[in-house]
C-alpha cells in the first residue's frame, strides 16, 4: 500500500517542510504520493512532482481549500486517504491543525511529531518537551502521522518526475471562514525556522537591553528569543518565549545570553546543533549543555561579540 503525504504550501510555492516529510514517508515502506490541496495551485503540484522519491501527485484544486481550513481539508483527506497505509503531514501549525481532525474522522489515533521511523508501524516521538523519547506502535489499519521536520533531512527538490493526477472533490463544511492573515514581515527569520537564534534571559535586566542582542541578531541573520523568566518579568512579549510552554527550536546555532538554564528552557532548545552560553555565573546549569561557554558580564561581552562579527 502507498503512503500519502499532504503537501504544505501557500498555493504558489511548496514549503520546505514537505521535503522533510517525504523523507520520513519514504522510510515507511511503499510508494509515496503527495496530495496538493489548494486553490489555483497547479504550480505547487508541478514543483512537488520534481521531488526525488515521489511516485504520484494528487492535485485537488478548489476554492474551498484556499486557506487550508481544517474543517474542509479534514473532510477531503479521509476520503482520498482510505486506501493508503499511512497519511503523513509535517507538524507545522497547519498540519497540527487539520491532521487530528482527519484521524478522528477515520476513527484512528494520530502519532504526533515523530522524529524516527523504526518500522512501518512503530515510531519514536519526543514527550515531556523532549525530556523523554517514546517508542509508539500504531494498532490502527491507517496510520495518521505528523512529522517533526528537524528529525529528518530534506528530500531533494529536483530529479523526480511524478505524474500528476487531478481529482475533483469539493468539500465545504460551511462552518468556518478565513478572515485574514497577518504574516510577520520582519527582516529577521521566525524562531521555529531560523538557523541561528540568540535569546536573552532575566540577566538582560530589562526590555531595552534586548537591543544589545538584536544588534548581534542582525549581523548573524538570527531570530531573537527569550526565556520564560524574561517574559514573566515583562521584558519582552511571550511569543518570543523558547521553552517547554513556548516554542521548541533546534537551530544550527543557539546563543543563550543571561539565561541560567531552567529545565523548562532547556526543554525548548537542547536539540540545537551548537549551543553557546554567555553568563556571569559559572555555576549556571546552561553551561552543562553548552558547547561553548563564556563566563562574562553580558553587557561587556555582547557588544564585543557584535563588533567582531
Amino acid at each position, binding site marked *: 500500500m502507498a503512503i500519502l503525504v499532504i503537501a504544505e504550501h501557500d498555493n504558489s510555492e511548496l514549503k520546505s517542510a514537505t521535503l522533510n516529510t517525504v523523507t520520513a514517508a519514504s522510510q515507511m515502506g511503499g510508494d509515496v504520493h503527495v496530495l496538493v490541496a489548494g486553490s489555483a495551485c497547479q504550480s505547487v503540484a508541478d514543483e512537488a512532482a520534481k521531488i526525488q522519491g515521489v511516485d504520484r501527485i494528487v492535485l485537488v484544486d478548489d476554492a474551498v481549500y484556499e486557506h487550508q481550513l481544517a474543517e474542509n481539508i479534514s473532510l477531503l483527506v479521509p476520503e482520498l486517504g482510505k486506501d493508503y497505509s499511512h497519511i503523513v503531514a509535517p507538524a507545522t*501549525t497547519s498540519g497540527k491543525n487539520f*491532521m*487530528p481532525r482527519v484521524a478522528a474522522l477515520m476513527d484512528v489515533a494520530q502519532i504526533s511529531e515523530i522524529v524516527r521511523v523504526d518500522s512501518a508501524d512503530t515510531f519514536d516521538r519526543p514527550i515531556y518537551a523532549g525530556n*523523554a*523519547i517514546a517508542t509508539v506502535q500504531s494498532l490502527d489499519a491507517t496510520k495518521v502521522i505528523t512529522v517533526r521536520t528537524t528529525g529528518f533531512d530534506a528530500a531533494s527538490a529536483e530529479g523526480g518526475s511524478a505524474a500528476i493526477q487531478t481529482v475533483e472533490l469539493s468539500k465545504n463544511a460551511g462552518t468556518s471562514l478565513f478572515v485574514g492573515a497577518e504574516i510577520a514581515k520582519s527582516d529577521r527569520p521566525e524562531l521555529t525556522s531560523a538557523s541561528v537564534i540568540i535569546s536573552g534571559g532575566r540577566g538582560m535586566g530589562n526590555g531595552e537591553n534586548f537591543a544589545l542582542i538584536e544588534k548581534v541578531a542582525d549581523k548573524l541573520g538570527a531570530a531573537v528569543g527569550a526565556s520564560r523568566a524574561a517574559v514573566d518579568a515583562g521584558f519582552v512579549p*511571550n511569543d518570543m518565549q523558547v521553552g517547554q510552554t513556548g516554542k521548541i527550536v533546534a537551530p544550527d546555532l543557539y546563543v543563550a545570553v543571561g539565561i541560567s538554564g531552567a529545565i523548562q528552557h532547556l526543554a525548548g532548545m537542547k536539540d540545537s546543533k551548537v549551543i553557546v552560553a554567555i553568563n556571569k555565573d559559572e555555576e549556571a546549569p546552561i553551561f552543562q549543555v553548552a*558547547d*561553548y*561557554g563564556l563566563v562574562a558580564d553580558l553587557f561587556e561581552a555582547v557588544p564585543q561579540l557584535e563588533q*567582531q562579527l
Partner: protein
Amino acid sequence: MKVLVTVKRVIDYNVKVRVKSDNSDVDLNNVKMAMNPFCEIAVEEAVRLKEAGIANEVVVVSLGSKVCQEQLRTALALGADRAILVESDDVLESLTVAKLLQKVVAEEKPGLVIMGKQAIDTDNNQTGQMLAALTGYPQGTFASEVKIEGDKAQVIREVDGGLQTVSLTLPAIVTTDLRLNEPRYASLPNIMKAKRKPLDVKTPADLGVEVKAHTRLVKVAPPAERQAGMKVASVEELVDKLKNEAKVI
C-alpha cells in the same frame, strides 16, 4: 451561553521528568502534579467570558483518576461554576478523551468549548481538534484572541510566521496558545468557596464509551545526553571557535 472548559492533571512544568529504569514509562511517583499550563489559560479565558457577561455558566471537565479532582477544585477556585470528572484509571488516549468529551458536550450543549492546545506530558496537540471532528464543530486552534459576536466566534490564531483570523459559527472549539491571556491566581476565600461547588463524577461506561487502545507504548528512553563542551576565555576565542571549529557562522 454555557462555556465548557477542560483541564488535565500533568507533571508540574518545573519538575524534571525521569525515565523509569525498566524503560516502561516516565516515573511519576512522588512527583509534584499541577494543572496543565495551557488548561490554566483555557480556564482563565472562560472565566473572563463570564465576567464580561458573555458566558453565564462555566463548566469544567477533567478525565482520569480520582486525584484529578484536585485540578477541578483549582479550576472552581479560579471561577468555574461546577465540575465534572470522567473517572477512569485506564490510560485514556486522545481519541478516547475526545469521544468521552463528545458525550459530555451532547449532554451539556455548551456554546463554546475551550481547551489547552496541548498537554505538556504527552505533547500530542490532538484532543481539541478530535473533539471538533467528532462534534462537527469548527475549530480555532492555537488562539491568541477570542471575540464572541452573536452566533460567531472570531479567533486570532498563532500560525507559523504570524497570525491568522478565522470566523467560526458557534458552537465551536477553541484551543489556547500562550498569548491568549495571563491566568490569575486563586484567592484563599475562593479556594474555600470552591470546596462547596458541585462536582459530578461519571464513568466512561455511564457515557457509553468503550476505552480502546489504538497505540501501544513500546518503551520510553531518556534522550541522548548532551555533553558539556568547553569554556572559552574571551569573545575572540568564541568567535574563532564558531567560525573555524563549529563552522556555524
